[in-house]
Each structure stands twice: as structure tokens, then as C-alpha cells.
């Protein structure tokens, strides 16, 4: 029993540690005004099924709003970085930043698209901008 108790305690403590760490990470990557992203005009009707240009414009607009919240906007989603955008219908794709000053400054990455899962409420998916990684080398906007 003396041995069991520390093991149980250890289990729950590690669980609590994991949850605490996850919460810390989630606090970094989950955007607090994500609800507003899908109200942006270039985002509202965009999904992975939309034409490439719409997705470029929508992703760049979402990235701009993301940077506008930052005290260090040059460092937020800089050129070369990638992020995952979840469109209002729940479909998702990776996007690479190629410019911080162009309306076409975000380019979807081929092959990263994931269709929306069925949503009970329809269109209730929250748009998130989740930084994933920085990728050296810009992508052609015509890819």
C-alpha cells in the first residue's frame, strides 16, 4: 500500500503536469479572437474547396489580423513561416507566408488540405491560426 500510493500519486501528478503544459501551449497557439476571423470578408465564404486566389486572400487577411494583435508584428508570422488555417466550414490547410505587405502574401501549401468533418450545427467550426513552423525559402505565389 505504501508503494501503491506514491505510484498513484505519481500518475496523477504526471497527468496534472501534462495537462498544465498542454494548457500553457494551447494558451500560446489558440487565438483569443478566433471567433472574429470568420467574419472577415475574405475569410467568411472560403474553404479548401475555394479557388486558390480566394484562399490566398483569406489566409493573408487572417494573418494580418493575427499580426495586428501582436506587440511585435514584424515577428508574428514572418516571411517563410507556415501556419495552419481552419476555415469556417472546418476544412483546414497549411499556408506559407511569402510577404507581410501583400494581400497575396500567404500561399496555401499543396497536399496539406484536409476536408471538413461533418459538423452537427453546420458552419460552427472556429477559425484558428496556429503557427506550425518556419520554412526557409519562399514559395512561389503561382504554385
Amino acid at each position, binding site marked *: 500500500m505504501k508503494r501503491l500510493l506514491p505510484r498513484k500519486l505519481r500518475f496523477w501528478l504526471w497527468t496534472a503536469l501534462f495537462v498544465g503544459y498542454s494548457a500553457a501551449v494551447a494558451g500560446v*497557439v489558440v487565438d483569443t479572437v478566433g471567433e472574429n476571423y470568420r467574419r472577415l470578408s475574405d475569410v467568411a465564404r472560403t474553404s479548401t474547396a475555394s479557388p486558390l486566389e480566394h484562399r*490566398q486572400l483569406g489566409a493573408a487577411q487572417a494573418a494580418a*489580423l493575427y499580426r495586428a494583435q501582436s506587440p511585435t*508584428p514584424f515577428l508574428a508570422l514572418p516571411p517563410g513561416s507556415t*501556419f495552419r488555417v481552419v476555415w469556417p466550414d472546418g476544412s483546414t490547410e497549411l499556408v506559407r507566408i511569402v510577404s507581410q505587405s501583400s494581400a497575396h502574401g500567404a500561399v496555401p501549401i499543396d497536399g496539406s488540405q484536409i476536408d471538413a468533418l461533418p459538423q452537427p450545427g453546420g458552419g460552427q467550426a472556429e477559425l484558428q491560426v496556429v*503557427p506550425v513552423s518556419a520554412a*526557409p525559402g519562399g514559395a512561389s505565389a503561382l504554385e
Partner: protein
Amino acid sequence: MGPVVNVRVLIAIVVLGAGVAGLATWWPSMSPAAVPGTASGDTTDLALSIAGRERPAADGPDPTVRSRAQALAAARPLHREFEQAADLFAFRQRLQPLIAAGDADARWLSSRVDEYCAGFARDPAGFARDSALISSLQLDAARALGAARDRIGSRCGRFAPDDAPTFVQLVEQRKDAAEAGSLAAEAALLAMGAPLRDDVNYRRDLVGRVQASRDPDAFAALSPAMGVAASGDAALVDTVSGTQSSELAWQIAACDLGLDCSADGALMTQYCANGGVCARDARQDFSTFVRDAAVPPQGAEEIDRMKNALVEDAPAPPQLLGMVTG
């Protein structure tokens, strides 16, 4: 004794973890966008300089460079009009006879107008709704972002959805301008991923021609291609290229050469309205904004070294030397 010590260590770790979680969740200054550069494993060497906020804008262009820039700006009335015209629709109409006559600068500037106004022209009502939404969010950049969007809305107010170019149309416009002789348009095509030619010698030659031209529009147009997009490009290995700092150096060099880098200029307006990168201080020009918000002091020195290499080491074109010395 051993298990008891382990439990204490674990408790300490959990308390620390919970503390970090609480800070990340609730501390206002740890807004999500404050971290992605590091959270995402970004390799850029840029960081916020708190000390830099107090520095005066003493790192501006030297008097010689400034006089050259002023001379060049005075010699570019169309470019000045693009930056200052209250009605860009009327300005674009005034460009049409020049475009028809094959004027390369007019074609380039027409594409600049279309690019500048595209966000408004695509959907004027949606643009207004977005502006209202953004102003309701009380963002750090709300005032500057609102001002930039208002400026675009005001200057582009007569544009309609039919006037908005697609990305492909913008590329076509710039191909026309480049083939007519606009170096800025040729540079922009490289930055847009659609160069006139795509080989090592061409890219190296184009960068050399832009630097030798001392054309501020060409410097600014080329700059995105000289940032991280150029990382690993063997053609550009001995040039100022490959990092976000080098992209900024090309842009600051453009400012020194006469580009309108004021708070109301197209460069800062597009950074802010299109990219959400807005100066909190409305009096800052682009050079000051970069030094204040993008780089620590040593990073600013590095950008200055790169900018000097671009501006001061390049030969001045004969016609500009004549204007300055004559």
C-alpha cells in the same frame, strides 16, 4: 525517503507548470501573436527591442544620400503623384495616354495603383464591414490599422469590383511594364514568383541591375525576393539576401533613395492594411518603425551595414550625379 523526495520534486514541477500555464493564459502581454516567432521555431534573428523604443531616429540617411534621394524624388513626378493623389482612379485615368504610348513607368504605376486599391475594389461593402469589425476589436494596432484602411478607402473610393485585378492579371500587367522597360516591374515579377526568366544568371544579373539603377521602386519591388525567399539560392549567395533583415535592408535602402516611406506612404500603408504590421506611433517613418519594432540595436546596426552596402557602394547613375552636382 526516495519516493517522498520524488513526490516533492513532482509537486514542484506541477506547481511550476501550472504557473506557466496560468501566465500564458491570462497575462495580457503574452498575447498569442507575441510568441509565434519562437514557438514556431522561426530562425529569424529579429527580436523586440524595448530599449530601442527610446532611441531617437538618429539613424536616418546621411545628408549626401538624402540630397540624392530628394533629387531623385523630384525627378519622378508620376511616382510622387501616385503617393500623393487624393483620387487614384483619376490618376490611373491620367496614366492611360502614357500607357497607350508605351511608357514603362506609367504601366508600372498603373499596376501599383491596381494593387494598392485591390482590397477595396474587390468588395467595397465588405471592406467597410471589415474596417468596422477591426475597429471593434480594440487591437494594439487599431488606430494605425483604421487610418491605413481609411486612407485606402478614401483614395480608392471610385474603384469598383470590375477594377480589381486577380493575381494573374497583376502579373500580366507587370510583364507588360517590364517588357516596356520598367526595371521595378521586372523586379516585382521575381518577387511574385513569376520572373521573366528563371535561371541563375538572370537572377544575379537582375539584382545587379536593380542595385546599379538606384531606382527606389525597383529596390522596394525586389525586396521580398531578397528576404528568406532567397535563402539557399546559389545565384544570390554574395548579395544582401536570405533573411528578413536583408529584406528590410532593401526596403530601407529604397527609402534612402527617395521612396515615400512616411507614415502615409504606400509602403507603410500596405504593410499595415494588408499585413497588420502597423507602427503604433503615427509619426514614425518606415526606417524608424523597423528600428523600433523589428530589431534589437545590434540588429539595427546589421541592417544599416547591409543598407549602406546597397546604397553607398553602388555606382550612382550618370543622370543623377549630374542633378546633384550640377
